[in-house]
């Protein structure tokens, strides 16, 4: 789709307004409920274990450059690094893209400063490994093995390297928490990591961890937006069925094209 048709524009406007509306109502102090997401509750446990063992942790924000999944990954990094700084535990951030690397460094530095231990921050712990997918993976394998990582966090957009990271992490005995919007990689995290957050739980993570009203409101707004999609689909199914009974199912498919046409 090159440009929005009128129905599409209206549809997008409804979704956006629902999300924004909920954000603003949450900011005005409306209290909101979020269900439990087990994988995210495990983050504290993972940091705690690394602290007990006195070993470092590793965070990978995925392979992508600056885009929406990476922004979310960085915002999760912020929360985990804060916990790490609180417990004075070393956090190695392995990045695969220069711009992401600079932001990650900035985030880590701030997290340690905010917890009052700026001297704990070691610039060498935020590393740019490689922009090449498997050179990056080989570097992560090296870090996991040599640094004897006790907890590994993988949040971001991953590709094939997901299993290399997760399985190596398992072999070195790290406790692993992972989440990615890259749907085909989720099964690998489920099999090899200890805790995996699935699908858009990834986008719920920062709200869940920070409990900031803006993010909570957004999450509720997302639920409403998804409800609109569900209702649209149900309406489409009912219409298609009625038309199908009335004049044949192929005809019903053609009629419903108004939603996307003119392309």
């Amino acid at each position, binding site marked *: *789709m*090159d440009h929005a048709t009128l129905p599409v524009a209206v549809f997008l406007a409804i979704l956006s307004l629902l999300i924004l509306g909920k954000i603003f109502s949450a900011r005005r102090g409306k209290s909101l409920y979020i269900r439990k997401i087990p994988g995210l509750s495990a983050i504290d446990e993972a940091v705690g274990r690394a602290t007990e063992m006195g070993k470092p942790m590793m965070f990978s924000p995925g392979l992508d450059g600056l885009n929406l999944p990476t922004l979310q990954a960085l915002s999760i990094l912020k929360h985990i690094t804060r916990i790490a700084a609180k417990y004075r535990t070393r956090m190695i951030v392995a990045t695969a893209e220069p711009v992401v690397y600079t932001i990650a460094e900035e985030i880590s530095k701030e997290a340690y400063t905010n917890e009052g231990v700026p001297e704990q921050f070691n610039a060498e712990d935020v590393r740019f490994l490689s922009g090449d997918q498997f050179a990056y993976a080989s570097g992560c394998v090296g870090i996991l093995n040599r640094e004897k990582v006790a907890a590994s966090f993988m949040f971001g957009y991953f590709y094939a390297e997901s299993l290399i990271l997760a399985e190596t992490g398992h*072999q070195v005995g790290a406790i692993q928490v992972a989440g990615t919007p890259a*749907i085909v990689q989720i099964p690998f995290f489920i099999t090899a990591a200890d805790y995996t957050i699935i699908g858009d739980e990834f986008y719920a993570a920062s709200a869940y961890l920070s409990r900031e009203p803006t993010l909570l409101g957004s999450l509720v707004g997302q639920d409403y937006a998804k409800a609109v999609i569900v209702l649209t689909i149900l309406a489409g199914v009912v219409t298609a069925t009625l038309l199908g009974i009335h004049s044949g199912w192929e005809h019903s498919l053609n009629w419903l094209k108004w939603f996307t046409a003119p392309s």
Partner: protein
Amino acid sequence: MNFFERLQHIDRRIMYLLLALVISAPLIWTIHQPVTVSPAVKKAYKTVEDMPADKMAVIVIYWGSGTMAETGPQTSALIRHLFKLNKKFAIVAFDPQGSKFAYDSAITIGDELHKKYGVDWVHWGYKPPANLLPLLQSFPRDVVKAMVADINGTPLAEVPAMKGIKTIRDIGLIADVTSVGELDAWIAYIYGSYKTPIVYCPTAVIAPEGYNPLDAGQIKGMLPGLQGAAAYERLLHVEGFATVAMGPLSASHVLIIVLIIAGNIGYISARRRRGS
């Protein structure tokens, strides 16, 4: 711990060694395997057959040496089919290694089937991936202007195969051979705007993503990975690397299944013992 219980704790190194063995053995002593053809591959085959003869097919190469084991045979099978049908095609590559490999394999197959570069097919050269989106917007309007020159630097206007090929309307098929999964861009810009049929040839790992657009009619067929290539080779009645690799592929799958079953036997017997 008895033998059965030990089955749930097989050392990974033993598994790795077994895997290396079951893959090497059938490569050294070739075993032939029957290949079945899935509906998605049949659809792809039919889409290629049905392409109007006066139009040109475009084979998109977006893969490098890493996935050559899958994408190489897919590319070769498509090239062979188009040659056999006497249909013109162009190759356009978004990866420098893939570009060279596709060129070499088209030359080899072309020699075998007496096809001439520049007349029966053309290679539009390697385009940096960063140019993908701008190209997807510009080339439908003016192919020659957007693609500029062929792989040897000859201006496309001077290549005989390009005669009569002006806009996307003269292109009857896009075959996207990819390890990257940029299909959404082709759907959004090419199928979405011009309804040009797309045949998707992904590596098996990104293949599950193809079922959604296949169902939505946004792509007209699919060769999922090496097995898709082997099925296509069977429809073409040729035996390439894909067909040879079916032996080790089966063997490795059998190994996984045996290991999973062994692990579960171990798990069950350990649980029984704890229970009793």
